[in-house]
Structures are given as C-alpha cells and as structure tokens.
C-alpha cells in the first residue's frame, strides 16, 4: 500500500505502519484502523448464532419463579435420572440372577459370588457401617464380622437369616431372639456368687488359673448357665449364647466387664433388614460378610482357573 498524502476527505495513512487511522485524535494521539481478521469476525458471529440457539433449546433465561425450560426439555435432574436408570438396567441381570439363586448355591457360581461380594461391600457401607464399622471390625457390643466367632451362625444361610429377620426385633416372627436373665440385678445371684461365676468363666477361657472361687462358680454355672451356654461353656447358637471359652469377647473379657454382663445381662439388637432391603441386597450383604475371612462352611469355588492345590508344609 503506497502512502498517499494526507488529504482533507479520507482518513490519514500512518506512515510507519502504512495503516489508515480512524480519523479522530486526542492531543495528537490517534487510533489505527486495524479491523479484526475476517475469519475471527465470522467465528464470533457464528458463536452469537449458536448462543441464541442454545438459549432456545436449553434452559437459559431466568424468570421470577422459574427459568425457561428450553425446547429440548433437558434438566440436570432428568439427566441424572436417565443415568441412574441406565445403571439400574446394567445391574438388573445380576440382581435377577441373585434372586433366582438360593444363597447356599452362590459358591457354585464364582462369577456371581464375586459380583455379590462387590455389591455387598457397597451396601455394607450404606447400611451397616454405623454399628459394625467401615472395616466390619465392630466395637464393644457390636460384633466384629471379620473373625470366626459367630453368635447365631456363620454360614451363608445363617448370615442371611440374621440379616433378614434381625436380632430381637419385635414384630418379626422369625427374628433371632433370646433373653439372658439379669442374674445380679434381679437377685438370682448374690454379688459374691456373681464374682464366683466370673472366676469360673475366666478359668474356662484360659484367663485365670482355677481357684476356690472358680470352683464355687462352676457349681453356680452348672445350675444357672448351662441351659444356654452348654455344660462346656461353648455356647449355643440356637439362643445366640456366646462361646465363653474363646478369646473373643463382645462386651469385654475383663473381670469387671464379665461381672457387669452377668449382673445386668446384654441383649443386643439389629434391625430386620428384610423390611428395608431387597432379598438380592440381603444376599449380597451376606456374601460380603461371609467373605471377610470368618465365613463358615467354606466351599471352594468351582472355577477351573483357581487351582486350589496347596503344597502343604
């Protein structure tokens, strides 16, 4: 572009850059006329057109009570709902298979069992963690589900029954129930007798050597406790009576803790989850709890890939 002389009519051409000025000036400061590149400008126009279209088809314009809906009818809630439906549909075959499989047959189908355990893990986090802890390790009064000590039985079927009907739940005919008498509080045993029973229980669980107190306690135990806890003290799952000879203590194994239990008794409760969860979810929870390492009636999976041959010692 040649640099024409400044003239009266057109805008001045700036000599160093060869660009026309806008034709205005303030105290000698002028503005060069450097328009946007065409491609940029048209992209900008296209964006405007797009934005108008967007505002029409999607919710965009705020109102007093509610905003515009958009012709597509899209909402974030609707999107969530459809995603949840899709997830539900994806789970449906597994849930159907679980419904169709009696829980004792689950180990025969390792693939389904693995899915049940995974589902159970998630359901456990939602429903069971407040009492049993996130690692299912329980706490005082809330059983540890990782160990091999079971009050009401540790097979898949036992766990399923416990989950479904709960423990000491009024209104559920099949609920697990039993009632240990409050031997001390109700005056069945005198405080000294309670201490003797405690001595005996501490002896059979290997925490104290036998002594005169324990001998007196043995007689009291035979008279008062064997009906539920069995003559050998190993408990009876029919009544949820714990094994008193092992090292696992739901309410503590110290003298004080046992004396407290004998005096006032404990009757822990658990909701009947059959009222709240679907049968498939209960099966998944049972499979998960059973998988934590203490499950009873272990059945080796039938998968050929898992070569369960151990070389032994």
């Amino acid at each position, binding site marked *: 572009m040649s640099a024409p002389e400044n003239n009266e009519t057109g805008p001045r051409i700036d*000599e*160093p*850059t*060869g660009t026309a000025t806008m034709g205005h000036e303030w105290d*000698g400061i002028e503005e060069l006329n450097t328009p946007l590149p065409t491609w940029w400008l048209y992209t900008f126009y296209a964006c405007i057109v797009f934005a108008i279209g967007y505002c029409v088809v999607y919710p965009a314009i705020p109102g007093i009570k509610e905003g515009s809906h958009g012709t597509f009818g899209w909402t974030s809630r609707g999107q969530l709902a459809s995603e949840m439906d899709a997830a539900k549909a994806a789970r449906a075959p597994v849930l159907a298979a679980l419904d169709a499989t009696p829980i004792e047959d689950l180990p025969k189908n390792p693939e389904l069992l693995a899915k049940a355990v995974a589902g159970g893990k998630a359901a456990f986090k939602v429903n069971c963690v407040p009492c049993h*802890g*996130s*690692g299912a*390790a329980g706490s005082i009064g809330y059983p*540890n589900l*990782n*160990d*091999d*000590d079971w009050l009401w039985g540790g097979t898949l079927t036992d766990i399923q029954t416990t989950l479904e009907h709960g423990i000491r739940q009024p209104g559920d005919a099949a609920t697990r129930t039993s009632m240990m008498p409050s031997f001390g509080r109700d005056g069945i045993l005198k405080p000294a007798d309670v201490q003797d029973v405690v001595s005996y229980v501490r002896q059979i669980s*290997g925490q104290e050597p036998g002594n005169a107190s324990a001998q007196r306690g043995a007689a009291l135990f035979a008279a008062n406790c064997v009906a539920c806890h069995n003559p050998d003290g190993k408990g009876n799952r029919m009544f949820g009576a714990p*094994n008193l000879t*092992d*090292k*696992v203590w739901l309410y503590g194994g110290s003298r004080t803790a046992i004396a407290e239990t004998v005096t006032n008794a404990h009757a822990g409760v658990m909701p009947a989850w059959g009222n709240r969860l679907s049968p498939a979810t209960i099966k998944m929870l049972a499979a998960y709890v059973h*998988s934590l*390492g*203490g499950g009873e009636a*272990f059945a*080796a*999976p039938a998968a050929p*890939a*898992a*070569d*369960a*041959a*151990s*070389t*032994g*010692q």
Partner: protein
Amino acid sequence: MTNMDPKGLTRQPPKRLHAETQAVYPRAVDGRFRRLKWAVMTFCLAVYYITPWLRWHRGPYSPDQAVLIDLEHRRFYMFAIEIWPQEFYFVAGLLIMAGIGLFLVTSAVGRAWCGYACPQTVWTDLFQHVDRLIDGDRNAQMKLAKAPWGPGKIVRRLGKWSIYLLISISTGGAWIFYFADAPTLAREFVTLQAPSIAYSTVFVLTVTTMWFGGFMREQVCIYMCPWPRIQSAMLDEKSLLVTYKDWRGEPRGKKSPTGAPLGDCIDCGLCAAVCPTGIDIREGPQIGCITCALCIDACDGVMAKTGRPRGLIDYVTLEDSAREKQGQSATPHWKLIWHARTLIYLGIWSAIGAALLFALGTRQHISIAVSKDRNPPYMILSSGEIRNAYAVRWKNMEGRPRKMQLVLDGPAGAKMWSEDMAKDMAARDLTRIIPADTTSPLRIYVTAPAGTAEGKLSFTLRALDQDGGQVSYDTRFDAPGAE
C-alpha cells in the same frame, strides 16, 4: 510532530511481521542425492505401511501382530518384547534415545533427518511428485497457477486434490493398524463396524496429512517446527552443511560485462529452482535449508555441462570450505565424525541403549504387589490367634500360564491361607497356576499364634517352571500391643 523524531526512527520502512506465502514449485532433478532420497523415501514409507501387517507368533495367549500398541489391554508388543504399563520406562528410554539420536545425527551429518527421513519431508516430497505428475514440471505448474479458472484447470486441480486425498486417507488409515489387529480392523473398517475412534483418528490424520503435506509443506519446516531452531543452535563451523562455495562461484554471471574473470557460478538459478523449500542456497546457511542436497544434484549437472569440476555446491563444513579456498583438501567425511561432540553424543546414546537392553534382558517376568488391610489392622480369632489380611497381586507377564509359589516369611508359627481355600489348609506357601499375561489378585490371611508381636513380614513369589525367577515384597504384620 515536526521534530518529535529527530533520528527518524519511526520513518524507517515498517517491519512486517507477516510474510506472504510464496508458493514453491520445485523443478524435477536427477542425481545421486535425488536417488538416495528416493531410496530413503521408499524405505520409510515401506516401514510405515508394512510394519503393522508383520506377524509374530507368541503362542495361543497373545496377539500375533509383530508391532502392536494394545491400548485396550494395556500392552505394548514389539517383536519379542512385551511391555506392561508399569514398564513404560522402556518407551521413555526409547524416546530419550530418539532425541539424543537426533543430536547425534545432527552432530555427525548435519540436518540429515530434515532432508531425508522426517515424515514432513517424505510426504511433502510425495505430494510434490503428484504435482509434477498432474501439472507438469516447475514452469507448467507456475503457468497453471497463474491461469484463470477454466474447465482444464478445474479438472487438473480436482484430479490432483483427489490424489492428495487418497494418499492422506491411506496415511491416516495405516496409522490405526498399529493399535489393533490389522487384518481384523481392516475388515471392520471397510464394513463400518470399527470403533468410532478408528474413524475419527483416520479423519484427523487425513486432514493433517493433506494440509501439511499438500498445502503447508515448507511452511511447517520454516515456521512451525521447533527442530530447525534447536538444530541451528547445534550447528557450527564443523557441521556438515550444504554449502555454496562462494569463493569459487563469485562473481557469478553468464558473461562478464567488463571482461573481468567470473567465478564458476553461471547464475542459472537451477539450485534455487529445484529447492523444495524455495530458498537460494547461495545466500549462505539458513533455517529454510533442510539439507536435502537436491541443489547439489542440480549444480553438479550444470558444472558437468560447462566442463567444470563438480561440487560448487556441496556437502561441506564451513571450516573445510575455508580450507579449500586456500587450496588445501577437505577433511574426509569419516574424519568429520571423529570429533569430540559426536563421540560424546554417541557415548550417551549407546549407554542408554545398553542400559535399556540390559534392563530388558534381566527384567523379571513375574511381579508381586501387596497391600495390607489397615481397617482393621489385625483381628483376634476365637482361638486367640492374630490374623492379618493382605491383598496380594500375582503377576504373570508372560504369554503362557505359569505355576507360581507364594512363600511367607514372617513371625514364627505364622501360616497363611487364601480366600479360595479353607483355613485348615493353611501353610507357609501356596501354589497357584496364574493364567498367561494376567494379574491375579488373591486375598491372603496370615495367622500367628497368640502373643506374637508386630513386626516385619514379606512375601516371595517364585516361578516354579525351569525359567524360574523370584520377587519379594516387604510389608508388616500387625498385632495388639502389650497391655
């Protein structure tokens, strides 16, 4: 504004930041470097197109494609080598070698990569041959470019662009075969059953190939590519360059107006006419020179016709050019390579290569990873025993099932069992057959007698077949503290 600018700085001609694209119509040329370029181009294209179709038998459990980047299964196969994602340092090492390899090549032979092997060069060369095929040589192309649009020009342009498109599609099309089984993908691709990522990849590569090779060409080298900048920092007077020996060529001309003796350059302009990046090498070394040496071929032809010795433009270092000027002979090429910087690059490059080969040769094909349960950290069983739980991952990185043994080294009396067996089978070692090319997770329970203190515990994984190999993983055994 009469005397605002006494030095007249702002009166200087404007420095334009934008240079208008000058179309380049390189003239066809023949000669030894042109033939070398043909050979390298054929080789490069053959490697690119044929590699995915090579087969390599790896047994029934692994794909039989020689070179396969299996993103879906996270495996990288290259002939006898199989790499897992955690071994990606091999690929990183290869990339470092490629980088240093470029330094090495630059130090030894200058911008040979740019001139012969760079895909941009190879594909630009290919597209320029298409131009000549359809439009004719340089002059015809220039004439056609200037000609007004008419049926003839439209037909030629459409024909040329169709061939461009064909080349571009086959370029993009070949790329995807590196990422899936080539014959299967080819069948799926043409029957429109391939995954959409295959089509979008081909589309993107088709567009970029057509754009870069068909239209941008030397613009990519001069404006987009960082490599010429890096190289110009590495070139010095000892670097092999395509050099115009001005001491021999100047003053250039066809016929001296004054009768004064002229140099060898007859100013025919052929060196500039054949240049694929459209530069004039007689202006000296410059960023646009990719050292493809086509100007050497052109000038040698002219020198032969005019009865002068070849090599007015030649592969020569600036140092040697000055030496030749004084009548000395140039350093032989092999001696140029024998030069500290080149040797240091060679040393680094070979050291990395040797280290990678060593790592590749001695790497374990089994691997173990253990993560200990922390919630709860330990567990008292009814017998009083202490139980810890571990998630143990057995890795078999070979294309065949292998029998492996996990051995426990931990507190006295400790035993382990796994989720897939009964507790009364607990032992100090477990044996499993791990399927080919698989990571097998297994939950392991370890029990130790009551009263065991917390301490170290390690698992050793051993392959029981004759190839053997073993790896260990150190972790810990938690127990209740003394009360």
